[in-house]
């Protein structure tokens, strides 16, 4: 079957009434998550996994997985749209990938051009979303065809590279990021070992036999951690929301931003594919690029429309690009995609090269639904931007306790165990203290999700070679991955020693 046939089938799946509904709910919640400062895409997706798991409970497994991932992915790219709203109107980015948008976006809003800035951001995000989807469709098959030839040794090295890339870019200190990664991997070893069937580190506690549930950890560390932070570091300042006048951009503005949108989309897409580099870096780099090639760079920072168009396209493109390693290689490049992968694995769907053959419905259904979701977002965002801007004014008094209640409901609904709830609370506390002291959390979740797969591939490779570790260095592809891993970790350290500034990815 050709790609077109698959895509038509995918649209068949995505256009089912309930999948349309799921996509709609996903992008709607995603936009809200993007708008609300304090809840990023990561905690948004983590919070919604248990909710979607219970909603899709009545469907057959594969359809349930498709619907759930459609909703969760919707939250992910919806958040990229929503993040621009607060950056432009309030000068407070809703999530880290919209930080650069504040530079020019808020200036535009001050000059009464908030409407054009918002609509350009929406249009840019839409164009970027479509561009990345087309690239995703074209690249998915060939990439998974290559990846399918990988043996366990190559896979092990590739995953090591993925982990190293995320840790290397995840925070101020590489040591701390690596510690978090290793902790995630160690947590993943608790429970019954699925190769030999031996219980490891369970101390005869029955609750530990099934292993530490990734969902509990993710919701606790991200969602509860952020909630605790908001409670502890309550700020009373009330910012004024900028007025939105004319919503549609003028022809000149459209013309002016066409090229930045195109460049932002392409740059964002390629940065998104790289593991570790995510939407935040993409928006940052595209802003710098625009400033460099602009004829009058002094206009940046005073309300240049290219300074809104480029980063907003780039962050959306990057979120699409990040789906490629997830879907084709089974290696998430960021915290949010790690959570998406965990969600897929909860439904027994293994992302990776076999996804397109074993579960074409899930893969192509998701891709088709991303087309539909992007159209929905464009339609939603242009007229409803004023409504979304209102969400910012949701009183924290009600929002914060409700997030706690939803986390507890979600984890209990899936796990039905008080122990998991206690773990959730402990993780919330840990999440707050760890991120406050610059210990990035995303690598831990990534390690927890990838742990079992890394271990299985390591042991499979070593079993084949009869315990000979040189196998990883003699197979060329595996060696190449290992060298890349090494370089990825060492180059930032060397650059720091020379006193150069290293760009880091806060989003993870």
């Amino acid at each position, binding site marked *: 079957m050709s790609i077109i046939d698959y895509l038509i089938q995918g649209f068949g799946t995505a256009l089912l009434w309930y999948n349309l509904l799921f996509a709609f709910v996903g992008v709607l919640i995603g936009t809200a998550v993007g708008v609300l400062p304090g809840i990023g895409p990561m905690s948004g997706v983590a919070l919604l996994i248990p909710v979607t798991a219970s909603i899709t*409970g009545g469907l057959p497994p594969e359809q349930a997985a498709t619907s759930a991932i459609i909703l969760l992915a919707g939250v992910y790219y919806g958040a990229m749209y929503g993040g621009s709203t607060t950056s432009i109107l309030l000068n407070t980015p809703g999530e880290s990938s919209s930080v650069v948008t504040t530079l020019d976006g808020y200036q535009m809003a001050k000059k009464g051009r908030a409407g054009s800035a918002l609509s350009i951001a929406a249009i840019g995000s839409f164009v970027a979303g479509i561009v990345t989807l087309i690239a995703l469709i074209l690249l998915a098959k060939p990439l998974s065809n290559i990846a399918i030839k990988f043996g366990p040794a190559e896979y092990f090295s590739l995953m090591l590279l993925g982990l190293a890339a995320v840790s290397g870019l995840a925070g101020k200190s590489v040591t701390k990021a690596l510690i978090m990664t290793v902790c995630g991997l160690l947590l993943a070893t608790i429970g019954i070992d699925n190769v030999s069937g031996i219980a490891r580190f369970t101390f005869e506690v029955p609750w530990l036999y099934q292993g530490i549930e990734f969902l509990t950890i993710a919701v606790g560390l991200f969602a509860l951690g952020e909630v605790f932070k908001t*409670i502890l570091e309550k700020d009373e300042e009330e910012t004024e929301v900028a007025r939105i006048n004319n919503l549609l951009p003028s022809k000149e503005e459209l013309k002016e931003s066409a090229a930045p949108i195109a460049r932002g989309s392409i740059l964002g897409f390629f940065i998104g594919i790289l593991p570790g580099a995510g939407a935040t870096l993409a928006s940052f780099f595209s802003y710098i690029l625009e400033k460099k090639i602009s004829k009058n760079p002094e206009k940046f920072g005073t309300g240049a429309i290219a300074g809104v168009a480029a980063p907003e396209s780039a962050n959306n493109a990057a979120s699409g690009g990040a789906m490629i390693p997830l879907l084709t290689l089974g290696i998430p490049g960021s915290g949010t995609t790690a959570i998406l992968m965990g969600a897929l694995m909860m439904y027994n769907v293994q992302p990776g090269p076999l996804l397109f053959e074993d579960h074409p419905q899930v893969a192509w259904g998701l891709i088709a639904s991303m087309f539909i979701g992007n159209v929905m977002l464009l339609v939603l965002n242009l007229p409803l931007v004023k409504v979304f801007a209102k969400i910012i004014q949701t009183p924290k008094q009600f929002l914060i306790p409700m997030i706690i209640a939803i986390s507890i409901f979600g984890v209990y609904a899936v796990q*039905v165990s008080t122990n998991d709830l206690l773990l959730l609370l402990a993780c919330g506390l840990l999440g707050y203290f760890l991120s406050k002291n610059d210990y990035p959390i995303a690598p831990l979740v990534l390690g927890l999700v990838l742990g079992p797969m890394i271990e299985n591939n390591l042991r499979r490779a070593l079993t084949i070679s009869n315990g000979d570790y040189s196998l990883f260095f003699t197979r060329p592809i595996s060696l190449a991955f290992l060298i890349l891993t090494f370089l990825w970790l060492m180059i930032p350290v060397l650059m720091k020693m020379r006193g150069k500034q290293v760009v880091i990815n806060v989003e993870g």
Partner: protein
Amino acid sequence: MDIKFDRIAATMFLVVGVLFIIGSTHLSSSSYGSKVGPNIFPLFLGSILALLSIRLFYESFQSKRQEGSKEKLQYKPFLIIFAATLLYILTLETFGYIITTFVFLFVCFQTMERTKILTSLIVSACFSVAVYYLYVNVLKGTLPSWPIWL
């Protein structure tokens, strides 16, 4: 960056790493004729963690003391909400979802801000009943309903 926190954390990570190393020596070192047993992976990881935490400890001596602006932390509401959450978790199964959620939300709403008592009552009642009804009656899930003795 709090240097004290880093040192305590480094020590704890070191302890965790060493415990995993010790723990993995009790695991079998082979499985079904393969030389690679379930102990290899945690053994490696435990050692790496121990090494990394030593490095972290070393780094904490190098970094200069940075006194960031001390922001005032709201300990009181946090402790109340934390305790409320803990109680909520512990009583959830005995008192049932609706009652515990209602009480929990009301307490937290009022801790966040001492205003709008009526709205808080209505919102917490609506939330707990709506979630319970939607999940149990519409989605056919299970949640602890009412107290067992009722």
